[in-house]
């Protein structure tokens, strides 16, 4: 393959956003007739690279050549015209139009100025037949499954003479059969000589189809590797980074007697809990005073597990027990009643009400639990809010400032304060330290340790293994939407072992029955 000329070369690409260097001298090569996986964790720069390539963003430095010609697209339309097509994770077609209309929108076959519907239907059918998709093209697109919609999007993309096809997480909402169908189409297109950039979080799919892998981390190129020469463990290491080994653990956090914690009755116990299309059935117990770390790559199902415990999503399989008694948690209200609290990773969309003040955001959950008829007395509000602003050092220390004016770290602390004043028995923290400065990060880590010392159960989700290892008594590993390992955090557990579990999907020693 390497003796051929690349169809696309990106050289020394840099892109700077205010305050962030999203891409830093990244190179990327793509050959005709290959599936090339673009891998990286959150903030690695994958989507920025794709957006630079398709002209959504301009570059700050670097060159892009397509077929030996230097190009610079002013927008996705130009890129498509030049043969670079993109299919996004969220199918960006129109579900309220027919399949044929979706394929030809903006370039309808015409006759005497009016749309030639018959010709459009014929060509749409032909095009879909090429990828072995036989459906009624006059039906509304929205009446078909997501997988079919995805394939229609791909058909549309390749019909405009695409030589480069970018698939941005096309499989994240598909089931196994649909993924297999999509893979078959990808192979077929590859054999036709199309170069495919495949962005996904599913390692199995990468190893199932990709010819080569490019890994990005923190906006830099880590390297480009033939898939066959890059073991999964090495890939995970390259994505997450190795520097964490050097870090010391916090003093005493994990030294507490794990046996004593595990001996008691668990606070919550999930038995085969799952939700179709979200996370495969899993079993997991969390004891009072225990910190359970959830590790895994982005999109591996970590958040989905948390949402089931909190009732943010409804489980459709399995059972849940709280304090040993069977419990149904259909919605957040039910979860909160039982002492479960959930700090979402999406602070802005699922956590805070930006327009309301710090005070109002802090008391919201407590107030909601009491009902609107029994307002939290103003004096008590002041006392609680003041205490937590001080305890978590929220800055600025102004309870009446709209919370959207606060920095990310302070917003996170406001969200934490909201749940802490409800005195939960299980605190679920989804990426509580992402995107906040190092000082706030340590504060939050210390707080988690203190809370569990005080008997609170904590489910701690983080992409940073170092953090998970520091804080957790037990590390639960997720991969491809299933729970693959539960590891006791004893002296023998280190980042390597966790990474191996993430990479291989199982860990022999310490693997409890799942």
């Amino acid at each position, binding site marked *: 393959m390497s003796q051929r000329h690349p169809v696309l070369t990106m050289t020394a690409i840099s892109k700077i956003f205010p305050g962030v260097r999203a891409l830093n001298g990244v190179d990327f090569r793509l050959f005709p007739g290959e599936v090339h996986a673009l891998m990286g964790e959150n903030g690695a720069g994958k989507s920025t690279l794709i957006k630079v390539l398709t002209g959504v963003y301009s570059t700050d430095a670097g060159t892009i050549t397509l077929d030996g010609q230097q190009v610079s697209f002013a927008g996705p339309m130009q890129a498509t015209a030049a043969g670079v097509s993109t299919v996004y994770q969220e199918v960006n077609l129109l579900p309220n139009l027919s399949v044929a209309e979706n394929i030809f929108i903006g370039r309808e076959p015409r006759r005497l100025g009016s749309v030639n519907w018959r010709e459009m239907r014929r060509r749409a059918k032909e095009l879909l037949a090429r990828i072995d998709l036989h459906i009624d093209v006059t039906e509304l697109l929205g009446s078909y499954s997501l997988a079919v919609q995805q394939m229609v999007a791909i058909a549309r993309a390749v019909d405009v003479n695409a030589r480069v096809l970018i698939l941005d997480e096309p499989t994240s909402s598909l089931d196994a059969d649909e993924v297999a169908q999509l893979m078959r189409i990808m192979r077929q297109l590859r054999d036709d000589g199309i170069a495919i950039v495949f962005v996904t979080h599913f390692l199995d799919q990468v190893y199932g189809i990709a010819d080569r892998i490019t890994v990005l981390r923190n906006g830099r190129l880590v390297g480009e590797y033939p898939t066959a020469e890059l073991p999964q463990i090495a890939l995970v290491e390259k994505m997450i980074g190795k520097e964490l080994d050097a870090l010391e653990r916090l003093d005493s956090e994990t030294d507490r007697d794990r046996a004593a914690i595990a001996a008691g009755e668990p606070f919550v116990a999930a038995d085969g809990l799952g939700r179709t299309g979200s996370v495969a059935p899993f079993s997991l117990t969390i004891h009072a005073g225990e910190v359970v770390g959830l590790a895994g790559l982005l999109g591996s199902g970590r958040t989905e597990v948390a949402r089931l415990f*909190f009732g*943010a999503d409804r489980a459709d399989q399995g059972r849940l027990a709280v304090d040993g008694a069977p419990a149904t948690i259909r919605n957040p209200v039910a979860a909160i009643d039982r002492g479960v609290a*959930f700090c979402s990773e999406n602070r802005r*969309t699922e956590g805070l*009400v930006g*327009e*309301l003040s710090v005070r109002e955001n802090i008391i919201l959950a407590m107030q*909601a639990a009491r009902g*609107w008829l029994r307002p939290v007395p103003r004096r008590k509000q002041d006392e609680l809010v003041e205490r937590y602003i001080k305890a978590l050092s929220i800055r600025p220390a102004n309870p*009446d400032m709209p919370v959207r004016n606060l920095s990310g770290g302070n917003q996170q602390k406001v969200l934490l304060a909201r749940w802490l004043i409800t005195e939960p028995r299980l605190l679920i923290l989804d990426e509580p330290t992402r995107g906040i400065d190092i000082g706030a990060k340590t504060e939050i880590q210390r707080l988690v340790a203190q809370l569990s010392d005080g008997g609170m159960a904590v489910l701690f989700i983080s992409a940073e293994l170092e953090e998970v290892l520091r804080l957790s008594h037990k590390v639960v590993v997720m991969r491809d939407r299933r729970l693959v390992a539960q590891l006791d955090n004893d002296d023998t557990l280190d980042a390597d072992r966790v990474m191996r579990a993430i990479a291989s999907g199982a860990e022999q020693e310490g693997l409890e029955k799942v």
Partner: protein
Amino acid sequence: MSTARTRLAGVTGHRLFWPLVVLVVLLAANTVYRPSFLSVELKNGHLYGSLIDILRLSAPLILVALGMSLVIATGGIDLSVGSVAAVCGAIACLYISEQPDQNSLGGVLTAVAIAFGIALLLGAWNGILVAGIGIQPIIATLILMVAGRGLAQLVTSGQIITINSEPYKTIGVGHLLTLPFAIIIALAVTLVVALLTRRTALGMIIEAVGGNAEASRLAGVRSRRITFLVYVVSAACAAVAGFMMTANVSSADGNAVGLWVELDAILAVVIGGTSLVGGRFYLSGTIVGALIIQTLTTSVYAMNIDPQTALLFKAVVVIAVCLIQAPAFRARFRRRQAPGVPPAAPVEKQKEQVPA
């Protein structure tokens, strides 16, 4: 110097500043046109004057707009308020007209109670459509907006019901403590709504739901109940407005009562500074907004503006108010003045004033 400037900016930056300026300008224009405009006199223990008239006439709009504020704060809208007012006014008038003694206080109270109960049912209907079934508010309430007119027609059998009931008439044109009774009712309802939202946690919860529905759900807010409740409150406010409008003329016309009042109410809410996408709401702003609209309507008549241009005139003023209200529009002018006014202080003040 700088503190004086800051204080000035604090005043001009206040949410109510520009709506109040518009109101004052409107009143001033009227005074220029007719110098006696501002005079208020006491006759037979009752206050009379143009200002009092404006207050009295704006009472129904204030009522409807109060309910509308809460609905809009949740991110919804209630188009059915005019029809609800018509239905309730018609039911009350029908019941009174069938009484042997139309002047019996008991009969009037029963009529009002029955009609008010119907209003709660109508509000519950809206609430079920929006919060229970999940229909978009504009469509859900459009149903009752259309059907309500028909219902009012059914109640009145397509006729205009005329009554001759002193107690009922009092709601619209009576006096209490020198003030028109309508003003007192509007004040009382304002007080009730303000207490309901700001002395309980209802106001904050409404703002949380309107500001970020998903975050509120994940904080354990039962947002459906809240949404249901605001439509019931809105219908209740509309019903009282309906009593007032029918009492004003001692008759109920299913076609005319409360016609287009929903649009004026939405306008009043927006002028008052509440965003149509939901979130923070300002009852004091809504009331100023309603007063502006009523002053405008009165001015158009008082100044003998050609009826053919009256609606256009109204539209121009409304556009002006909305532009002045828009922070983006004002910012162009403010940039030339002293920069760097900390916004936190005035924002806080606004909030404190809401219960008033």
